[in-house]
């Protein structure tokens, strides 16, 4: 515990950096995946193609991606923007299919009924499709959040600080405790974000909360 006792302010600072990299990436992934998912539902042919292409991006290895992004977007190599963009690519790839499923889960009859009583087509998206997609969408966002938090550590490869820096630094200097702290802190951040997402979900979808009072991830045991 000696290392942590001395270095906890550094760990806190890195946790902050970690959040500043992962939270924007998750938000951007959601913002990008939603219209793609919606498109995949409206136009299965075009949408299916976009969906496939987007999912494939997950197969791009991290290092080449971190090198391509600065070239394409004109960011400096060692910038948070590069890492956030890379994480957004992976996050979007993970989320698009769930987003499509989320909109597909909205009962077509409910949608037609909403139109029939006088919602405008755009209103149906905001007032019916989107809120009703929240429970399924959220299950995908939780996966993306956890995955992004652990992927942030790759930023350390190009020298963008995050909790991943503890891993690279600890390995290089042979400080096992530092590596352990890096791993545990990353997991804790993931758990906390996941918890916040569950809370957000039940705030956004109280109707679903009342129907199934317990989120599945907590398990069926009481």
């Amino acid at each position: 515990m000696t290392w942590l006792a001395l270095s906890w302010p550094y760990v806190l600072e890195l946790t902050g950096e970690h959040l500043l990299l992962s939270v924007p990436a998750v938000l951007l992934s959601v913002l990008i995946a939603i219209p793609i998912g919606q498109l995949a539902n409206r136009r299965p042919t075009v949408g299916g193609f976009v969906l496939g292409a987007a999912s494939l991006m997950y197969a791009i290895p991290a290092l080449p991606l971190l090198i391509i992004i600065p070239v394409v977007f004109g960011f400096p190599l060692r910038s948070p923007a590069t890492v956030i963009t890379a994480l957004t690519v992976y996050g979007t790839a993970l989320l698009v299919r769930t987003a499509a499923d989320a909109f597909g889960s909205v009962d077509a009859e409910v949608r037609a009924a909403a139109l029939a009583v006088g919602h405008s087509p755009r209103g149906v998206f905001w007032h019916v499709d989107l809120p009703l997609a929240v429970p399924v969408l959220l299950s995908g966002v939780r996966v993306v959040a956890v995955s992004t938090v652990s992927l942030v550590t790759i930023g350390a490869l190009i020298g963008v600080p995050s909790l991943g820096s503890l891993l690279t630094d600890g390995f290089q200097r042979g400080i096992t405790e530092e590596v352990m702290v890096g791993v545990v802190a990353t997991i804790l951040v993931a758990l906390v974000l996941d918890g916040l997402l569950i809370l957000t979900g039940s705030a956004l979808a109280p109707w679903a909360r009342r129907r199934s009072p317990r989120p599945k991830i907590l398990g069926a045991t009481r």
Partner: protein
Amino acid sequence: MIEFESVSKTYPGGTVAVREFSLQVPSHRTVVLVGSSGSGKSTLLQMVNRMAEPTGGRVLIDGDDVAGRDAVALRRSIGYVLQHGGLLPHRTVLDNIATVPVLNRTPRRRARIQAAELLERVGLDESLGTRYPSQLSGGQQQRVGVARALAADPNILLMDEPFGAVDPIVRRELQAELARIQADLGKTIVFVTHDVDEALRLGDEVVVLRRHGVIAQRGTPAQILAAPADDFVRDFIGADRDERRLTVERIDGRDIAVDGTGRPIGVLDS
């Protein structure tokens, strides 16, 4: 008044739902379209609020072709009750009822207060207002559907088998409730059902449909019972069914109505 002027609807793919249908629905009346499944009843209703566009003919409301109206504004001006309720599962009962007023920019608070009043009008307790549709029984959901259709005080109500999914006893209650509301409000109602008894009970006028929305007979319930136009109608309304064939027997000086099975069902007032 709603007028169907030789309206036809062929769906993409070639299914003919409605062929050359003409009908006038007078204001403040209830006209019931009754026909078996697939006879084009829903399609006819949907052509009034432009959820379906006719492939031939016109639908007029008070003389104006609905095709020339803005579809969204048109729908907001017409109350629509759907077979399976069609309530928004993520909105509370009050918010469901307040849907159209809120879309029309009535302040939400006021719309909710009016919605609570409507709950009472359709025979529901105000305490149900904060529930979600999934927390209601089928009959309660249908009542909420009716309340939602009434919320913006439309002149026209379109009702598509609104009581089809509830048990017979609740259905009778809902029918009585609707008759009471209609006596108060005098809306122009087009009501669709495949239940002949419901049609005879609720319609000022009943229109019996064959396939493709072809009119087999139209008339008051009494006219249709008195003189079914042909075997199809006779069969459809069950004119030969025991409970429709009443005879009068004189017992102890009173006239007793007896149905076809010989079971007494009432006493004639002298």
